[in-house]
């Protein structure tokens, strides 16, 4: 879902850590280095990387086309190839039968079976085009706030991993505890009280 869509999901993050100055150059270099690459017609099953908000299928981080006022707007792209396990099984059975016939043997070793399976998956990965999933990001780096336009657990985990690897900054999800601990202006004494809270019972 794009940030300009009529309906959206948002996961909020606090960005922890400091970027090396000059900040925009540091960000640009990290985005370029970790931009998504094409995996079609290759054996690779999945790719995860940054892409452009304006043109997610042709990432371009040259210039400042991802800078919108005080915000950085770009996207996480996850390309994945999927095929049914039944397709793998079919090609595995055909290939196994061919090898047995050629060798005149009546069984294959465990290693031979694994090798055939790997080769079948590699061949399918070369043939099957990847499906791209694009999730927009708005990063206000001055306020250390980031909005990710998805609530999907897997996409959020990929974001957190790639963000740390790219920028050496940690993303802290805004959840009930972190929203209270980081964003509510609590004193140390109040944070201690927070840690000791237990559920309220509104009954009885």
């Amino acid at each position, binding site marked *: 879902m794009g*940030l300009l869509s009529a309906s959206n*999901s*948002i*996961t909020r993050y606090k960005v922890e850590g400091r970027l090396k100055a000059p900040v925009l150059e540091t960000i640009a270099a990290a985005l370029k280095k970790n931009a998504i690459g094409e995996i079609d017609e290759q054996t690779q099953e999945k790719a995860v990387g940054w892409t452009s908000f304006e043109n997610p299928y042709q990432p371009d981080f040259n210039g400042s086309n991802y800078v919108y006022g005080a915000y950085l707007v770009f996207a996480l792209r996850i390309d994945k190839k999927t095929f049914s396990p039944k397709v793998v099984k079919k090609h595995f059975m055909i290939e196994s039968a061919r090898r047995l016939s050629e060798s005149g043997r009546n069984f294959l070793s465990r290693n031979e079976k694994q090798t055939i399976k790997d080769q079948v998956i590699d061949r399918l990965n070369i043939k099957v085009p990847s499906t791209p999933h694009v999730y927009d990001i708005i990063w206000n780096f001055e306020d250390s706030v980031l909005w990710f336009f998805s609530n999907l657990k897997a996409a959020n985990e990929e974001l957190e991993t790639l963000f740390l690897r790219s920028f050496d900054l940690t993303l802290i999800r805004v959840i*009930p505890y972190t929203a*209270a601990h980081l964003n509510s202006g609590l004193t140390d004494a109040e944070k201690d009280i927070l840690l000791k*809270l237990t559920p309220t019972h*509104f*009954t009885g």
Partner: protein
Amino acid sequence: MLDIAVAYNRFKFLGDEFLTWLWFVIEQDPAVFKNADPDLTSFEIGSRMVLEKKHKKAVERITIKGEDAGLEEARVALKNGALVAELNLVYRSAQQKWQFTLKGESLNLSSLQTPKISAPESADELEARVLEKIFLYDKILQFLAKLYNTFIKLRISSRWQRREISLIKKWLDSER
């Protein structure tokens, strides 16, 4: 600070209590919302509410849907020990409308609809539209952050035990 995975499970009840408190404030003390947004026109329950009651490891879920859904069943569930786990809300400010679902355990927003903006017709217009949309997201997120801060300050204060719980219980027991 606690590890996030530990904190998520340990304190997800705070998010559910926040949503339950929001419903109580919407019905009993909506002036609280004006402090968070002086331009506020209204803040109301929308078209969906999910309540959860936890029995040891099992979770009982009750979903109430529809624009004109009665909330009597939800109130009964609260009286029986459930909490609001998801809440669809409608926020109106300065004659504009936002509608979204807030999940208690994560504070994630879904089905978020901001006031409509016109589609960009050229590359030059795109930046203006994106900034306009960011302003609209920021407006609702700031409002929710202020409400959550108000709730947390109350929740860790002695007033929560001394006064707020009994007010919420009284509200639950009141005839509708």
